[in-house]
Structure formats: structure tokens, C-alpha cells
């Protein structure tokens, strides 16, 4: 196999740690303030996937990009400490309140400014909005092929292969670069950064770009550029659950209760 010098871009997002988010018992909304910010889990798998391609093709150059507030710098540095070569934070007040359309547009404009690339990686979706629309949206803005929901991907003879996990099977696709791949959560085990690499990443630092740098009009991005609006939020009233207790020796009573209440139907129907 011929080693290739690939240009890879990984799109990441910083999200509140979902294992730490607290759901307000009164309003049923997420208390984001209480949670630590982390790299979106699927995006960590995307970064790892890019690094694995670099492991096999050492001349590969990886750039990680994010659209977010200034403190998202830490997420980029974290990726650089794992072996990513370059980090770009695209940040501007104008980006606030973006839905998936302008988010994709902003990232696509950033990638256009970066210039040449062979593969773009992204996580399948973010844990805080769970749409999965941004990655493929970027592919559409750039007019390139895509493979979404992948558990594995590799480069062979200049072609990009990816395994897509679908509801009814596993599909392997072959694409010509440039292309975009979205990576499933838990599809690999992301490597850790060493202390030495962390220090090195801090020394190298990230680049910060603003709206001006990527050449989009202010009314095209953020809330103004978003076709959708959130009209209302209401808490989902959950069923009241009684939590009725049975001991292991009361299984006959328990089964009788399930059957008599029509919860469990045994045979004949």
C-alpha cells in the first residue's frame, strides 16, 4: 500500500458534559451552567478516526476546527495534544443563535478558506442538539460526497472507504476524495494526550478567525441566518410511576397483577 500525504479536517463542537448535566426538577430543563464543557463524544471518535489514518500515513496533516465561544479553545487544544497539527477557532458574536443551516455554512466557509483537503471528519451528531444535520450540510455546501453514520473508515489506493451502520445492515462505500465522513459515537476508543503533548499543544496554540476572515455576510450567519425558530418549550409531563414493591416470594401475586391489569397477556392472543 502506498502511503499518502493527506489533508484532513475534523469539525468538532464543545458541549456540556451529558453525564454531568442536571435536569431542573421544576422546569425540567437542562441546567447547563452546572456542567463541565467537553468535546462532543462523537467528535472525539471523529478525531481518533483521523489520527488513525495519520498513524498509517504519517505525512498526513490534520486541522481541527470549531465554531463556538472563545472558551472552546480548550477543546481544540485537547485535540492538538492528541496529535492534531492545527486548531482553528471560528468565533464571532454574529454566530450566536445559529441553527443547523448557518452553522454548516460557517464551517463550510472556514474550510473553503483553509483550502485544500481530502477528507472532512465530523461526529454523527452532537449530544446537545442531536440533529446530525451539520456534517452532511457542510458536504452539500462544498458539493462533495459523504458517508454518514460510519463505524470505520480507511484509505486504500487513493480511495476512501467507510462502513456505514444502517438500521438494516452494514454498508461499505468507496469514494473519491474529497469527501466527508460522519463518525458514530463509541466507534473507537479515543487516545489520551500525554502531559508532554499537552504542554506542546499549549506552546503551539490555536488560530482564531472571525466572520471577517471567512467572508460571509453578517445577516447570513447566527440567528439572522437561521430559517428555523424555537417557538416554545414545554416540559414533557411524565407518567406518574407508583413503584409498587414485590418480594421474590410474591411472584405469583406479581404475575396475577400484570395479567389482571392487561399489562401482560399470556398466550391465546
Amino acid at each position, binding site marked *: 500500500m502506498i502511503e499518502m500525504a493527506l489533508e484532513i479536517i475534523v469539525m468538532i463542537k464543545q458541549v456540556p458534559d*451529558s453525564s454531568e*448535566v442536571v435536569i431542573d426538577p421544576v422546569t*425540567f430543563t*437542562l441546567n447547563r451552567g452546572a456542567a463541565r464543557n467537553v468535546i462532543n463524544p462523537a467528535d472525539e471518535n471523529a478525531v481518533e478516526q483521523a489520527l488513525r489514518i495519520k498513524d498509517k500515513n504519517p505525512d498526513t496533516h490534520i486541522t481541527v476546527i470549531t465554531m463556538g465561544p472563545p472558551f472552546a479553545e480548550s477543546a481544540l487544544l485537547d485535540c492538538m495534544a492528541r496529535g492534531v497539527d492545527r486548531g482553528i477557532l471560528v468565533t464571532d458574536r454574529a454566530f450566536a443563535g445559529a441553527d*443547523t*443551516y*448557518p452553522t454548516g*455554512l460557517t464551517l463550510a466557509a472556514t474550510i473553503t478558506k483553509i483550502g485544500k483537503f481530502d477528507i472532512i471528519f465530523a461526529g454523527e451528531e452532537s449530544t446537545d*442538539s*442531536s*440533529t*446530525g*444535520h*451539520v*456534517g452532511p*450540510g457542510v458536504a*452539500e*455546501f462544498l*458539493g462533495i*460526497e*459523504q458517508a*454518514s*453514520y460510519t463505524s470505520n473508515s480507511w484509505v486504500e489506493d487513493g480511495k476512501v472507504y467507510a462502513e456505514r451502520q*444502517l*438500521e*438494516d*445492515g*452494514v*454498508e*461499505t462505500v468507496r*469514494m*473519491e476524495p474529497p469527501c466527508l465522513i460522519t463518525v458514530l459515537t*463509541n466507534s473507537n476508543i479515543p487516545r489520551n494526550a500525554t502531559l508532554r503533548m499537552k504542554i506542546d499543544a499549549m506552546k503551539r496554540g490555536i488560530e482564531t478567525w472571525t466572520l471577517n476572515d471567512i467572508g*460571509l455576510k453578517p*445577516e447570513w450567519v447566527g440567528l439572522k441566518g*437561521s*430559517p*428555523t*425558530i*424555537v*417557538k*416554545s*418549550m*414545554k*416540559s*414533557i409531563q*411524565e407518567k406518574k*410511576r407508583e*413503584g*409498587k*414493591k414485590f*418480594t*421474590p*416470594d410474591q*411472584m*405469583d401475586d406479581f*404475575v396475577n*397483577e400484570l395479567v389482571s391489569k392487561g*399489562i*401482560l397477556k399470556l398466550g391465546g392472543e
Partner: protein
Amino acid sequence: MAGLINAEPPANPDEYRNVMIFLESRNGELKKPGLEMISVGSAMAHKVNEILIGIVFGDKVGDMVKQAGEYGCDRVIGYESPDLKDFRTIPYATLLSDLIGELKPNILLIPATRNGRDLASRIAVRSRTGVTADCTELDVDPNGRILQARRPTYGESTLAEILCKRHRPQMATARPGIFAVPERNPNAKYESEIRKAKIKKEYLRKEIVDFKPKTTVDLTSARYIVSGGLGLGKASGFKLIQELADEIGAYVGASRPTVDLGWIGRDHQVGQTGQSVRPELYIACGISGKAQHLMGMKLSQNIVSINTDPDAEINGISDYIINADLYEVIPKLIEAIRKKKAELKKEAKSESDGKKKEVKEKATEK
């Protein structure tokens, strides 16, 4: 291809009429998530005196077009070509965008399956419009024919209503397993049209080199589910889970850690990164109930928790709690179920014997 261009509302949104749905298929058969959009799509269309247009792509589409009509689409358009045999993003997105340009639908629904989302993301950008992902409630406001797309957010605790007032079509993807498949009516009246598709070579650069069908465990349509968690302690614990499941005709579910440990296949996983289920009965065995798991099963109609830990988080959302070792509980539960089954059988038998006797008696009366 979209190019770096902003979302743009059409000059005249009133030109956009009717509800369009994209019906997913595999090997010439319509998939359930597509059929599930027919009732809700046609209800919205009819509410504002519009029609429901079903779109089908495939190698051969005749049977699927008929099926879509009989399930309730007012108009069905099928595109066929050997190049459309399998879902591929660019040819599918190109054809569907062309249809949007031609028919100008007010609303476009696509199933929130993996291929559906893959497609919807690109269609939204190409049509320079918005899309609301993974909706569980859909309605239309007759005033302005505005789609009210509602989706659970913040870990299923909140329902957000999202509007796309000026851009067209108003797009949403519908979560599988939420909307019911309508009754098929062989006498249904519908308009249909099958077109031959010509796909440009440049759109076919992505090749599908292999497809391994999964014998899927479709937990989303399961009536009963028995799930195992780390409390099983070992992979072989799933044998006991299976035994209980077999006894009541249930599917086997699992928490993510057991899947990560390789105790059971990932297609059994329930939760945020697995399947979202809402069976009539969910029996959680040795599952502590991390938020990510609860997110995928808390809409179950009835929840039973079998756990040694009285403070297990899952107990907080359980209708029934058996606070003991699952290895003690499950065999006893199976035994009780067998006993009950035998009882019911006996009752049924004596009842039917009684009926027979009645019939005999009536016969002799004559």
C-alpha cells in the same frame, strides 16, 4: 450543489402547496418509517385542503407506488432506474430537489432514519430552507399553513416547537416508531405516475462495494422487552434474560456497558446511543438506570425494575420494583408465569368445554 450561499425564503411562499413525503425502501419494499408518515402527512394536508404526495425511488417501483397509494397517499410519484436501486446521497438528493422545484411542496417529511437524515440534511441546504430533526409531533397551523414541528430535547425532558415561517418547503424528519402505520385499503383512490430517471455519471461516484444485511432486532416495535444490565455480572447472564423473554414473547434489550463489554450485540442496546423503545412492558434486570439508558426507555408504558440496589436510579421511574438478586427473582418469575399460563389454559378449556356442552344441550333441545 449549494455553494456558499445563505438560506433564502421564496418571494411567494403561497405558491408552495401540499405535503410531500419521501418513502424509504430496500429491495423494492417500502420501509415502515416511511409508511408511518402517511397518516400524519395526510391529516396535515387534508386539514388545509391540500393533498399528500408520496415519493418513491428504486430499481422497479410499480409495486411500491401501488402500496403507497393504498396506504393513503393522494398522489404517488415513482422514479425508477437501476442506479436508484440502493440509497445513495447525491442521486437521491438531486432527484428529490428537482421534484421540490417542480411541485413546490409546502411541507416535506422524511423519516429520521440514518439514510433519511443523510438525505434531509442535504435537501435542506440545497433548498435553502430549515429542517427540524427527529419530530415526535407534527401539525399544521391553518393560519399561514405553518408546520408545527415538535421534537423532544434536553434528554427527552422538554418538547420544543420549531417553526420555519418564511422558507419553503418546511422540512421535518419524523422519528421512527412514533406515528402509526395506517390500514392499507386496496380500493383507495389515488393518482400515480412512474417516471424513468436518468442519473448523471458524475452523481454516481460513491460506490456501494458491500452490504451485509443485519438480522435486526427491531426493539422499537417490540410489545415487551426484557433488558439486562451490568447487574448480570457475566455474559452468560443473558441466557436467563433470554429465557424470561421467550416465556412471554419479549425481545431482549441491553444497557450500553453490557454491549461495550461484548456480552451481547449492539443491536440490542437501548438508550441514547442505542434504540429508543416504548413497549407495553419493559423489564429492567440489573440495570442501574443511567440518564443515557433512561432516555431510551422511559416512554415505556409499564416499567419493572429487578435490582439489588434499592436506590437504583431506574426505580424512580418504575411501576413495579423487585428489590432482590435477579438470579433469584427471574427463575421464580418464570415459574409463576408458567403456572399462570397453565391456569389460563385450564380456564379456557373449561370455558370452551362449557360452550360445547351448551351447544350440545341446545342441539338436543331441538
